[in-house]
């Protein structure tokens, strides 16, 4: 066996704390190691060339690179040794950066640890075998989960590239939060004017299937071959008949909360969220429907000209196959009422959230765009905006910046002047102004100077009612003064959080998420739209808070990644899978019991004699069966038991 060891400097990232030259010297003392080097940047072109040259010149049959995490560059180096003429699975990586040089400061300590990590990797390398990938057929259909602007953009890009796309949306219409917005910053474009044509494009595109009022129930399979159970929720309206005329909505006698208008005014128990809904179909909110609650009513059934009402409708599960999945589940507005007692917990009528204000400003909203006080209907003379409500506030466990509130507040402040007249007093309480997009800073400046909106740096400590006003008590930290403003209307720049059910969906998809439910990308810089689960991609706020331009850009980026994946007719599967040594198999079928993927099957090896056999393309290589098999007859390629034990032994030898 001829092993080559390459200890990377990574500039000063590793060499700053680990004596790489010393380790390279020591590596040559290890059994089977015939070559050791310490390149400045092993992943760069000269570093890779050095590995390839050494494979040829020193006839290396194993390569160990001690550098960063395998999550960073294992793929890079596998490709490198492959090109250099060595089987890519005869490569092993020692992580001496993330797991060593970056977490220690003392050079001798870090050097000793790095040395042991390398010894472990060399021990593992000795046990590696060459492996070869299999190929599987690829299903070219794509599932997009979420029909907001991210899902819409991704779906249109994918469909334009000729792929069949299914959008699953939990509401009855696509459009998402962007459909609720009045205008968009910094151009003051009408949100609906730019979004609704795209919604229509989706519904009319020959390659797009809309499945609204649906949710993902179950996901199985793997990249190229996912099987997804989609739950079609019972809307109590036969959508093949419904024509969206809204007569039922007009005649329905039962009121119900209107989530589209963020609870400003009630809607009806049978509802169409908004006039431009796509598809424009009615649904019954059963909990508020008089018929479902009392057994009497059926007004909608009587008035429906299409005979579409169906009180007997049940949820239905539809199973579909996809090659790739785009997750674009978007956001939820922070429920400030539950957290901010000092702002009245939602009991003060003239204190509303940013999204409620969007609906108030909107011409097709519940008030026809009339900005007024909810307490008495009067036009406001003084409007106060409070930023960072549910953002950058550790006391409510929201330490992150929601990224959009500074800008939407500036926009809303401008629109307030526009709707209520330039004489209206408008104040914005802020911590910092974050306006780092194209034209954003200029926009905020314009709002401050041209529109005369007064920005006060400081937090508001309390809101309370007095003499028909909402008293805003806070501090101007620049002047070092207490301020108190009697306001007519207070708008909270409520932050955003991951959508309801984001964690549950992540668990169905086997993708990672952070403590706030935002999905984790493959790498923050290099793989920003991929997840660590092959074939599953991200778009929009489900990954992290971001504004519309960034969401759309990410959605298009995601689409291009999916197109790249599905451009191939066959996909290479990982050869690091379990293999049954049938000679020793005692046919106990425990492997079949524990496998999450149903990879092992009973194979008739001789008439009447069955042994376990692993279906190569189904096995995902978790190794649960390996640790379960009572006779140790299953081995996991790439992670053989001997390699694991040798690594443990190597550390403990000295």
């Amino acid at each position, binding site marked *: 066996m001829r092993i080559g060891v390459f200890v990377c400097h990574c500039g000063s990232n590793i060499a700053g704390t680990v004596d790489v030259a010393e380790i390279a010297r020591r590596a040559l*003392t290890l059994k089977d190691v015939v070559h050791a080097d310490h390149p400045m940047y092993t992943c760069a072109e000269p570093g890779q060339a050095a590995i390839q040259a050494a494979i040829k010149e020193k006839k290396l049959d194993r390569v160990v690179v001690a550098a960063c995490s395998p999550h960073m560059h294992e793929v890079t180096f596998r490709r490198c040794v492959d090109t250099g003429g060595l089987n890519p699975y005869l490569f092993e990586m020692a992580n001496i950066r993330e797991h060593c040089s970056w977490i220690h400061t003392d050079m001798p300590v870090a050097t000793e640890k790095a040395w042991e990590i390398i010894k472990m990797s060399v021990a593992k390398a000795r046990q590696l075998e060459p492996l070869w990938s299999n190929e599987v057929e690829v299903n070219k259909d794509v599932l997009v989960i979420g029909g907001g602007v991210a899902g819409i953009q991704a779906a249109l890009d994918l469909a334009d590239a000729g792929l069949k796309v299914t959008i699953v949306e939990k509401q009855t219409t696509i459009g998402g939060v962007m459909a609720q917005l009045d205008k968009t910053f910094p151009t003051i474009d009408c949100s609906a004017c730019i979004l609704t044509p795209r919604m229509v494009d989706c519904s009319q595109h020959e390659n797009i299937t809309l499945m609204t009022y649906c949710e993902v129930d179950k996901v199985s399979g793997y990249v190229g071959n996912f099987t997804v159970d989609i739950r079609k929720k019972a809307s109590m309206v036969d959508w093949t008949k419904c024509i969206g005329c809204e007569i039922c909505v007009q005649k329905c006698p039962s009121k119900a909360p209107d989530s589209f208008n963020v609870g400003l005014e009630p809607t009806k128990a049978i509802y169409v969220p908004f006039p431009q809904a796509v598809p424009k179909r009615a649904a019954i909110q059963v909990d508020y429907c008089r018929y479902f609650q009392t057994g009497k009513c059926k007004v909608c059934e009587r008035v429906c000209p299409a005979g579409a009402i169906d009180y007997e409708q049940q949820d239905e599960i539809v199973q579909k196959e996809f090659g790739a999945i785009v997750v674009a589940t978007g956001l939820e507005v922070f429920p400030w009422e539950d957290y901010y007692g000092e702002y009245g917990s939602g009991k003060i009528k003239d204190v509303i959230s940013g999204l409620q204000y969007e609906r108030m400003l909107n011409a097709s909203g519940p008030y026809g765009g009339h900005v007024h006080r909810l307490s008495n209907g009067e036009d406001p003379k003084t409007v106060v905006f409070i930023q960072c409500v549910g953002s950058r506030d550790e006391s409510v466990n929201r330490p992150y910046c929601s990224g959009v509130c500074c800008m939407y507040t500036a926009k809303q402040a401008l629109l307030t002047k526009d709707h209520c007249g330039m004489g209206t007093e408008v104040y914005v309480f802020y911590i910092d102004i974050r306006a780092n997009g194209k034209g954003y800073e200029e926009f905020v400046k314009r709002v401050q100077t041209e529109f005369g909106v007064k920005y006060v740096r400081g937090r508001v400590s309390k809101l309370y009612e007095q003499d028909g006003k909402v008293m805003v008590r806070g501090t101007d930290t620049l002047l070092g003064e207490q301020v108190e403003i009697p306001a007519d209307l207070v708008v909270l720049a409520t932050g955003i959080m991951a959508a309801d059910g984001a964690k549950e969906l992540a668990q169905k998809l086997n993708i990672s998420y952070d403590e706030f439910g935002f999905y984790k990308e493959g790498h923050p810089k290099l793989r920003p739209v991929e997840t660590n689960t092959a074939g599953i991609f991200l778009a929009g706020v489900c990954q992290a808070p971001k504004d519309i331009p960034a969401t759309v850009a990410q959605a298009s980026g995601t689409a291009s990644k999916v197109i790249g994946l599905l451009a191939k007719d066959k996909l290479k599967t990982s050869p690091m899978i379990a293999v049954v040594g049938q000679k020793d198999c005692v046919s106990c079928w425990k492997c079949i019991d524990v496998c999450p993927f149903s990879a092992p099957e009973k194979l008739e090896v001789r008439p009447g004699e069955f042994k376990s056999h692993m279906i190569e393309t189904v096995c995902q290589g978790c190794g649960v069966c390996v640790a379960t098999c009572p006779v140790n007859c299953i081995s996991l390629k790439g992670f053989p038991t001997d390699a694991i034990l040798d690594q443990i032994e190597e550390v403990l030898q000295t």
Partner: protein
Amino acid sequence: MAEVNNNQASGAATQSAAPGAAGAAGGAATTGAPADRPVKIIGIVCNWCSYAGADTAGVGRFKQPANLRLVRVPCTGRIDPLFALKAFEKGADGVLISGCHPGDCHYSEGNYYARRKFELAERMIHHLGIPKERFKWTWVSASEGQRWQKVVTEFVAGVEKLGPREGRAL
């Protein structure tokens, strides 16, 4: 960066075997410990959550004691409890096992099988005379760099309190 010659290399190796060089590692005092050496801890972690969580800790420069050596496996479900026993047999002062939080397993349910095994393994290890502070299994997700730092720091501190194990066999 040419290949270095063998003489130099072996010289360095001899040096490193000297007690002083390794003595710095770990650093912390081992009060009442039978031997004055840093404790050695084997960590076995799953690729998708805890290994990546340790990466996240590294990227965030969350400092940790240097006593831990990690073995990467695809899933905690891959871990045979015998790996931990083997480590103790070979002289490990502590064994740390970490995977994805329940519900978050990359392979859906591998960590549930692991949980069942380690619940039992923990008791058995204790029964064999190894104090429970020397064996820990837990969950750290890929985004929990700070949690990883805390888990490692606390576990190492607990093992250091007991000091290195005397003798090698179980």
